[in-house]
């Protein structure tokens, strides 16, 4: 029997500490839509998604009401679109079909306008990457990603160069909204096939026909738990985080199981992530500061984040039957009030963020840089980040916004979950000749580690 204190504790976590389920994401395979006629392909994609996800939003809302836990987003991820557009000349009609299907089903986002090019690009992959600026500027809720590197394949530097150009062009096309389009594009290394989080969600080719996955959240709950162990050694800190992560993940597992049962779709995974929002009390940076750092980004931040990321996984893994996705602590700058403050006061720099991505769950996320940053510099930032992922056998990513017309110290405003970010400086020295080389950086050796 559950006691009164436990019940009131759960209510406090939801009401005051912003415990929520960030997303129920339905993964939908589009392989059965493949054909060589653009119009028919687009209508098949639209019908497939609308039919499969018909009850997703309603079911999510029912679960939210009955269990009293907020489910912030309902989302859809699909097969990487370049894999189904090999026989058509233009992927843009599919982008429009995805956006329309998402709106028809009422979900918040749809992800999977993606290409997996870690080893090389097919003609369809290249067409898709080149179409990203147009696709993301004319759609509203569609997200895109490109996997440019992996530990087994190395880094595709031709794709890295193209992605830098695509990001610049996309920022320009969405100039009136501070380059907002770039918030919907992630460039990955070692991308996972079952990630429920945006903008990088796609439903990988190794998945089945359909699955529902859940991404949990709850930085506020962890921060509050750490407030009770002020000054205690790190052993206690790690234990406290593990116990809290366990509870948060159990909520995710319950929601995932219920969604799977009610929608009659297999359960995919629970993604054990601490996903912040710009709201006060929902910050990963504030957890790091609670460990004893004056500001996130100062010396000690990487160690604090390493402990947090590892303890979240250790605590969460026992609470769920299948763990996957990106699992860990996210460090998006614009989406985290503590990160915004730290970047604005100069405590948090791009170089420190890069170091933090060696131990966090993903990578450089929602970072605004000056609008005059060259495409080659953006490509070089992507290459650095991909190298970290490749060598350390982890997922890394870049979601960066070269905000048109903005300079260091200005702010970009995206609103909602995407928040706001100070424009932070990049190195002024050029990487043009480095990026112009193209080719592939070979896959690394996985022994003789030092």
């Amino acid at each position, binding site marked *: *029997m*559950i006691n*009164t204190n*436990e*019940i*009131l*504790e*759960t*209510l406090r976590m939801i009401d005051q500490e912003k415990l929520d389920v960030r997303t129920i994401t339905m993964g939908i395979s589009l392989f059965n839509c493949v054909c060589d006629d653009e119009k028919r392909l687009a209508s098949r994609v639209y019908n497939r998604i609308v039919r499969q996800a018909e009850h997703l939003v309603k079911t999510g809302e029912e679960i939210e*009401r*009955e*269990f*009293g*836990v907020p489910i912030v987003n309902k989302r859809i991820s699909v097969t990487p679109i370049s894999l189904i557009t090999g026989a058509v000349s233009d992927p843009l009609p599919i982008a429009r079909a995805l956006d329309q299907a998402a709106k028809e089903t009422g979900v918040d986002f749809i992800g999977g306008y993606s290409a997996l090019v870690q080893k090389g690009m097919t003609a369809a992959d290249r067409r898709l990457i080149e179409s990203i600026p147009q696709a993301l500027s004319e759609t509203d809720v569609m997200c895109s990603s490109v996997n440019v590197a992996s530990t087994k394949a190395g880094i595709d530097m031709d794709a890295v160069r193209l992605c830098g150009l695509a990001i610049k062009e996309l920022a320009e096309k969405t100039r009136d909204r501070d380059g907002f389009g770039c918030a919907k594009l992630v460039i990955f290394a070692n991308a996972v096939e079952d990630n429920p989080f945006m903008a990088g969600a796609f439903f990988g080719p190794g998945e089945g026909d359909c699955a529902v996955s859940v991404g949990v959240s709850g930085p506020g709950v962890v921060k509050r738990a750490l407030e009770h162990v002020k000054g205690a050694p790190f052993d206690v800190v790690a234990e406290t985080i593990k116990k809290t992560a366990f*509870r948060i993940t*159990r*909520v995710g*597992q*319950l929601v995932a199981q219920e969604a799977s049962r009610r929608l009659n779709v297999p359960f995919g995974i629970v993604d054990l992530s601490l996903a912040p929002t710009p709201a006060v009390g929902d910050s990963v940076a504030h957890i790091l500061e609670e460990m004893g750092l004056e500001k996130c980004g100062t010396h000690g931040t990487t160690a604090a984040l390493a402990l947090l990321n590892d303890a979240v996984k250790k605590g969460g893994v026992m609470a769920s039957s299948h763990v996957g996705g990106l699992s860990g602590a996210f460090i998006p700058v614009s989406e985290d009030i503590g990160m915004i403050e730290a970047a604005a006061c100069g405590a948090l720099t791009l170089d420190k963020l890069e170091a933090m991505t060696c131990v966090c769950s993903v990578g450089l996320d929602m970072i605004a840089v000056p609008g005059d940053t060259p495409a080659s510099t953006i490509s070089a930032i992507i290459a650095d980040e991909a190298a970290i992922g490749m060598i350390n056998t982890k997922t890394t990513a870049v979601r960066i916004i070269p905000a048109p017309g903005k300079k260091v110290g200005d702010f970009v405003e995206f609103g909602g979950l995407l928040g706001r970010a100070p424009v932070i400086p990049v190195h002024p020295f050029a990487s043009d000749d480095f990026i112009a080389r193209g080719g592939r950086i070979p896959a690394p050796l996985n022994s003789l580690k030092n």
Partner: protein
Amino acid sequence: MASAKKAVVTVLGFDRKGIIAQVSHVLFERDINILDISQTILDGYFNMVMVVDLSTPTCTFDVLQKDLNDLGKALGLQIRIQKNEIFEAMHQV
């Protein structure tokens, strides 16, 4: 699962006369049995937790939830009903 048919009603807000009576009345009207009840008052702030049996409901969960929400609004209290599984998931291994 036996717990699948239980729910927890929580009432939070400033204390006043008749809160338990009125919440119980809504449940009685819908033929719902109260299995457990506990109440504390901290600095005039009223906390009540009730476990109720939903195994033989005379209405849907949504209707009951609306009844309780309406009562909460009328009394200026936060009244919630949540299925029991969320608490079991979080607090039991």
